[in-house]
């Protein structure tokens, strides 16, 4: 082979590599081009808010309007202290946690029961599955209004002295069949726990579809051999449930519990649906205010406190998620 031929080969090889290199470089550049709109929007509407929220939260008494007029704020944790010591915030935190603690376990257990039952039948199974999913595709404000109507009394005995109950609401009518006196659920003068009951009922009703869908999906992918083995040993049903079904479903259960808690801590629009923007029965506004509601109350002024509250909310969600993950890692089967 002559030297010239070799040089030619080398030259060609070098040209190819060069081409390849530029191609890689172009690829580098291309990736960012494809991502440009996404990154630009995320920087403005996700990145900047994270930085800004931290900045606002740690400037004592921060208020955007005051900041524009040239006032400087000292750095510190006043906002957090103010938020925590404010009694309204404690109520919000209490309401939020209470609703979470009531609704997440009940809806999870109920969904698990329903999913297991659905999985054990053939006739009507798909039909019922469709019905159970229906609440998912609803508007939480709109259906909240329906629930309000169902619990609402028209012309309550609590409104004025001589007023009589015209219609006690369909729920009270149904309870009346069993001899229960009409209860003032959500009207003026109603009790706190009655309000909480209505909210919990609505939130559970709303939360079931998603949980059933996930748990049923999990059940359908469970290997049937475990159940056949249990049958051979003639294991009682509840033992099959606690020793086979629940452990095998544990990843899905952990998932719906975690998402349930995250959603529960952000509870807001279901309360607006039933009680309106006042977040409480007539005469006692903000009685059922939640963490998110608190943040929105401070969005127009004293944003430092809103930011501090948002960070506290994030902290709570983060801690609860971590605890859940830790527990589920210990308890889950996989």
């Amino acid at each position: 082979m002559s030297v010239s031929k070799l040089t030619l080969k080398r030259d060609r090889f070098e040209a190819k590599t060069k081409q390849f290199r530029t191609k890689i470089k172009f690829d580098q550049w291309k990736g960012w081009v494809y991502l440009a709109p996404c990154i630009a929007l995320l920087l403005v509407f996700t990145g900047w808010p994270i930085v800004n929220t931290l900045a606002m939260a740690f400037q004592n008494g921060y208020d955007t309007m005051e900041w524009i007029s040239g006032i400087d704020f000292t750095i510190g944790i006043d906002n957090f202290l103010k938020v925590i010591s404010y009694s309204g915030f404690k109520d919000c935190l209490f309401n939020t946690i209470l609703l979470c603690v009531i609704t997440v376990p009940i809806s999870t257990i109920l969904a698990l029961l329903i999913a297991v039952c659905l999985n054990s039948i053939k006739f009507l199974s798909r039909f019922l599955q469709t019905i159970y999913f229906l609440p998912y595709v609803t508007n939480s404000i709109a259906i909240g209004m329906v629930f309000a109507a169902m619990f609402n009394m028209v012309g309550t005995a609590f409104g004025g002295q001589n007023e009589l109950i015209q219609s006690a609401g369909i729920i009270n009518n149904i309870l009346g069949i069993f001899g229960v006196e009409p209860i003032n659920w959500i009207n003026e003068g109603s009790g706190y726990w009655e309000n909480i009951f209505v909210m919990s009922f609505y939130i559970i009703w709303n939360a079931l579809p998603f949980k059933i869908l996930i748990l049923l999906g999990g059940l359908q992918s469970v290997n049937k051999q475990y159940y056949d083995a249990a049958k051979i040993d003639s294991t009682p049903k509840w033992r099959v449930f606690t020793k086979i079904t629940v452990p095998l479903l544990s990843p899905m259960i952990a998932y719906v519990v975690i998402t349930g808690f995250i959603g529960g801590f952000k509870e807001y629009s279901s309360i607006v649906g039933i009680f309106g923007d006042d977040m409480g029965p007539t005469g006692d506004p903000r009685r059922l205010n939640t963490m998110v509601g608190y943040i929105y109350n401070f969005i127009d002024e004293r944003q430092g406190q809103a930011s501090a509250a948002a960070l506290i909310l994030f902290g709570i969600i983060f801690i609860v998620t971590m605890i859940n993950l830790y527990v589920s890692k210990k308890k889950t089967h996989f």
Partner: protein
Amino acid sequence: MSDKIENSKNVTSETKGDSAIRVMGSRDINKLRTSAKIGKGAGMVLTYIFLIFIAVVVLFPFYWMIISSLKTLDEYKLSVPTLFPETIVFGNYAEAFTQANLGRLFLNTVYVGLVSTILSLVITVLSAFAFARLEFKGKNALFAVLLATMMIPGELFTITNYQTVFYLNWMNTFTVLIVPFLVSVFYIYLLKQNFMQIPNELYLAAKVDGTSDLKYLWRVMIPLSLPTLISITILKMMGAWNSYVWPNLVTDSDEYRLITNGLRNAFVESTGDVNIPVQMAAVAIVSAPLFLVFLFLRKYIMKGVSRSGIKG
């Protein structure tokens, strides 16, 4: 006795294809199953009673919404309620439609929903493609950062975004309802997973043939991941339909507001002595499109939801 035989027949047909059983010797197990099945009968009845009871509880609010919307106010207020309207009136619907200005709000919502869905799909497809197929420095780190932002509650962003759109002078525009929510990290993640299932050889083959990336994306990747894209579309449209908080903050006239705002603002009082039949009619109008979508596209919604686990 004949029952037993029938049962065992059923069981055999049930276990067909269950390989484990066949390995273990199907006769013994069939016997066991038959005896178990007899005890099962009572359990089955209870199961059905429970399931149907739950179904009634789930459906009752919808039923109550519809029949209340068809009643006259006087009939609604009867102390002993009627389970079906004595006189069916449709006037409540007309009244609700004008009182809540639903026509205008409907158009707004459809406009915002369509524009934001289309733009969001374009951005999501391009980003998912970059993450799934292109190689560049910092790709994995960037993706990890994006995923991390999903943990932060949206309310934290809202405080600042509210100020940002104020500075940008976007208050009371459609832009403010569309732009801040165009990027959803979750949809990018969902679509990226889908794109990665498409064999890379197809991409390389297309490269050899000199097909451009965009053409490949349009001809191969989008058709192959159509179910995911449809799921994203439906969830995004439902999101526009159900959004309440943000439009309530950044708009103050019916010219730009969305349908849920109109519903809540037109009927501020939902308790006490209010005209509930009209309210229920308005609620039914707002809910109807959602039910139609559900009726025809149930499969995509349920698939999308079980994979994404997010509410609209």
